[in-house]
């Protein structure tokens, strides 16, 4: 499938900030399931910084903006050719050992509720187990925007029983760890469905490591594995580590916080 | 050099000069309170505190000005950021941070002042008389400044130290002068009276300029002579013109060393030109208080420019 992305993030500061530093994971991963035809990231008034592929295989690009500025726009535009690999991440070069994803983070720490959730789940092999876990998470957390926020942890989301894709991914990662399955958070895009069901174009899901297959994506929020409607950007231990844009503004005060405005459109384009 | 290092050097100087001034405030206040006054010594102390910008802090902690509390507040009290103890501690801490930008003599002078201060703080308060305390401060302030003059390399660090001294001193001279003229003496009929002269003389004493003044002017102490001495006389080490000339000189040296003229240098030169063209009559026409208020504002503007250009680290080439 050919997907076009138009993703604009605007940061507004009520008081001018002295400078802004950002680190982007905004470039589609290079693997068998996807290929960029054209791709452009632009930061208003920005100077591109160092660029490299990190240990997890993701393209990282630094940006700086010398202030004072009152607004910054990050625009991402491009077209990606995708293919359905049933969620399997193939032909992807990375150096981090899967075992390193068994360490828990604050967002994916285990709580009693998580143990209960996975307690009864068993399966013949890892892949089946991974599917079962993803189903269990999908059943435990109803999709409902607005009840959780950026810093909600897996344990909190499970208690609420509601959340968005970030929460599904965090809970699934935590559950996988109970079974000693390395799991990580993936951020990316999801194109609109034909039936017009509600979805998040800027999307997130989890990858679980399955012996023999490698990393396999599971989108518990949509009860499926990522297919050709998905574009994979980058990964990390949790949402913060995998964030497509991390940034710090110098001179930001709690009295004059930043306001964020995100517009994303991901469409399947005519061939 | 690192902007933060320049900033630390600048603040070593400002704090040492401020410690010196606080001691002088203490001295002048005590002397004034020894003579009979129409308002009682409390109101005079009040005025002094007002001028030093320390009144509110004092009131909220101690209430009415009582000599012993005043000594505590101006000398020992860490709640008062301008007390001698606070200033010497801050100067030494700034020195410790940039230890390697100082000669061992300068560090020794700073560190010795700090170590002796800690000893003073341990002593019984009643065993410490005021003149011993003020002498002690002035001696150490002079020791630090003297070792800077005698041993620091004449590089940019030396300029930042001197700019700190000059800026702080100009500000303090203007404030001390303002206390005397505007606050201590609210009623015009006192001008020129015996009481007035005594107070003026006390002020000169506090500035360590009592004898110098007589050498320079002779005869009666008059408001005009004092104003000339403390504002316009380039021979006086504490006059505004001396301090501003010092800043213009050191900013000029920096501009030359760095190959870049700055807004700070322009401001210092403009301020100096204005002082050079000024007369006492015109100052009195404008009103001494008004004149000094304007000067304090201009010098603060100069301080801000120095901060923005050199000390904040925000400069771009």
């Amino acid at each position, binding site marked *: 499938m050919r997907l076009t992305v138009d993703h604009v993030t605007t940061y507004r500061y009520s008081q001018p900030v002295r*400078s802004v*530093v*950002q*680190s982007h994971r905004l470039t589609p991963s290079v693997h068998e399931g996807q290929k960029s035809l054209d791709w452009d990231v632009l930061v208003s008034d920005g*100077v*591109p*910084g*160092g*660029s*490299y*592929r*990190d*240990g*997890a295989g993701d393209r*990282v*690009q*630094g940006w*700086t903006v*010398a202030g004072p500025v009152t607004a910054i726009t990050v625009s991402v535009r491009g077209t990606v050719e995708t293919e359905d690999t049933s969620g399997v991440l193939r032909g992807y070069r*990375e*150096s*981090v*050992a*899967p*075992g*390193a994803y*068994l*360490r828990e983070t604050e967002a994916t720490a285990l709580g009693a509720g998580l143990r209960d959730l996975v307690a009864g789940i068993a399966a013949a092999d890892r892949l089946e187990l991974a599917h079962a876990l993803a189903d269990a998470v999908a059943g435990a957390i109803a999709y409902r925007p607005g009840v959780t926020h950026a810093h909600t942890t897996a344990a909190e989301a499970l208690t609420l029983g509601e959340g968005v894709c970030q929460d599904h991914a965090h809970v699934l990662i935590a559950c996988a760890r109970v079974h000693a399955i390395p799991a990580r958070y993936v951020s990316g895009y999801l194109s609109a469905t034909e039936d017009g069901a509600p979805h998040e174009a800027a999307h997130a899901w989890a990858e679980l490591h399955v012996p023999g297959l490698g990393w396999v994506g599971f989108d518990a929020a949509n009860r499926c594995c990522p297919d050709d409607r998905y574009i994979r950007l980058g990964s990390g*231990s949790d949402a*913060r580590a995998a964030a497509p844009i*991390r*940034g*710090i503004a*110098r001179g930001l005060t709690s009295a004059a916080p930043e306001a964020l405005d995100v517009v994303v459109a991901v469409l399947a384009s005519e061939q | *050099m*690192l*902007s*933060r*290092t*320049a900033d630390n050097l600048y603040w070593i100087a400002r704090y040492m000069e401020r410690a010196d001034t606080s001691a002088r405030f203490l001295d002048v206040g005590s002397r004034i309170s020894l003579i009979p006054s129409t308002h009682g010594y409390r109101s005079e102390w009040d005025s002094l505190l007002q001028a030093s910008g320390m009144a509110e802090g004092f009131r909220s902690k101690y209430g009415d000005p009582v000599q012993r509390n005043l000594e505590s507040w101006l000398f020992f009290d860490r709640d008062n950021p301008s007390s001698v103890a606070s200033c010497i501690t801050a100067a030494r*801490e700034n020195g*410790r*941070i940039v*230890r*390697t930008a100082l000669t061992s003599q300068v*560090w*020794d002078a700073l*560190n010795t002042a700090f170590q002796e201060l800690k000893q003073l703080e341990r002593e019984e308060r009643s065993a410490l008389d005021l003149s011993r305390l003020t002498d002690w401060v002035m001696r150490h302030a002079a020791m630090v400044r003297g070792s800077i003059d005698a041993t620091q390399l004449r590089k940019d660090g030396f300029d*930042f130290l001197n700019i700190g001294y000059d800026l702080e001193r100009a500000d303090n001279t203007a404030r001390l002068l303002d206390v005397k003229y505007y606050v201590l003496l609210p009623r015009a009929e006192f001008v020129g009276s015996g009481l007035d002269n005594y107070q003026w003389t006390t002020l000169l004493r506090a500035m360590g300029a009592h004898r110098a003044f007589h050498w320079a002017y002779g005869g009666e102490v008059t408001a005009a002579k004092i104003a000339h001495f403390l504002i316009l006389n380039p021979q006086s080490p504490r006059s505004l013109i001396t301090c501003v000339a010092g800043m213009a000189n050191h900013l000029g040296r*920096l501009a030359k060393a*760095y190959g*870049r003229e700055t807004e700070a240098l322009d401001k210092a030169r403009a301020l100096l030109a204005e002082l050079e063209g000024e007369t006492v009559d015109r100052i009195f026409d404008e009103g001494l208080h008004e004149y000094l208020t304007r000067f304090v504002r201009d010098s603060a503007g100069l301080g801000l420019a120095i901060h923005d250009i*050199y*000390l*904040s*680290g*925000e*400069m*771009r*080439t």
Partner: protein
Amino acid sequence: MTTYFNEMTGTGGDLRLPYARLQDWVQSMPVELRTLKQAEAEALFRRIGITFAVYGEGGDPDRLIPFDMFPRVFAAAEWARLEKGIKQRARALNAFLVDVYGRGEIIRAGRIPARLIHENEAYEKEVAGFVPPKGVYSHIVGIDIVRTGPEEFFVLEDNCRTPSGVSYMLENREIMMRMFPALFRENRIEPVDNYSEALRRTLASVAPAKCRGEPNIVILTPGHFNSAYYEHSLLADLMGVDLVEGQDLFVEGEFVYARTTEGPKRVDVIYRRIDDDYLDPLCFRPDSMVGVPGLMDVYRSGGVSICSAPGAGVADDKAVYTYVPEMVRFYLGEEPILNNVPTWQCGKPDDCGYVLANLADLVVKEVHGSGGYGMLVGPKASAAEVEAFRLKIAADPDNYIAQPTLALSTVPTFVEEGVAPRHVDLRPYCLVGERIELVPGGLTRVALKEGSLVVNSSQGGGVKDTWVLAE
């Protein structure tokens, strides 16, 4: 009763050669003179401002580490062997770091458990796949060594991140030379004051690929409240480089710059004395106030070098320590010259059983602890302390290792009653860059309390000048 090896008199009481000339020196110094000299030394230390703040103890923030004037001496031959062993270990540790962040061959070969590395807090995913300039992760390796006999040396632990204490090595020597010049004429003692030059050379040799010309080096300190600030400032001064805090640096485009009075100045090599977690709030702890936002992106893209490299800590973890001799064999194909202390890992059930059964005879340490805190010295502990530790170990066995109580060697030390033996250890500082260099000397720490085996300055330890005699 344990007999301890006395480095001056051996176990038999005969004067050992390296200390031969010190006998007369001690005897020629009456108590009054000694007291005078001790006071002089203290005044010198205070004057130069070398103090040590102890966390969480309150009291004098400008406390001095007690300095003992009786030097610790190594003969040339003794040192030669130590030097070979230390350099060998430093090479192996760096080879290990490059490997575990790269292909992980030692893990594939089954010589070290993957779990121990990948699930280790100190393993930094952010640097996986990255090879720092010259393949060096740990540029200053501090190796803590104890001695139990004439030929018996053991490595107690490795410090691959930012080992501190080298300022004491330098200042102790400076002060000894000032106070006892005659001693230095009589004994031919190898100098240590070329350390700063060697450090500078080491740091310059690992300048990043994008550096043009002479690299601009800085030392990054957490700030003047840090207990080791004096050391940071001394090293900066001796090397003639800027001592910066995080706020003095900023990232613009592909590089890091220092804020100076003349505008931004590019920085090529950062000798950092802050932990990985605080280096870059964008990458690690977002609440870090002492780091530089964006630093890691510049680092990974070759715009700046960070020494030691982020992630170096995985090599000096106490659980990984057990495998260092294996690293020497695996990477260098050599037999280790310096031995490890036998170590039981409480995470292994068999080991744990042994440890719990023999607690009163063992030293138990937290895997991630340092500074002598969170440690049990079995033979010196009360029954209640032992029992308290038993519970701690049972609750979290992975977090503890145990070692036999070593019969640490002693060196004569000035005490109130005269001269008496006190236990010591040694921390030499090995520099790894384009070359490996080791200054002949190090920091000797001494447990000043009679019978104490804990040399940490935070727990009543002092320091001594450490001599290596020339051939």
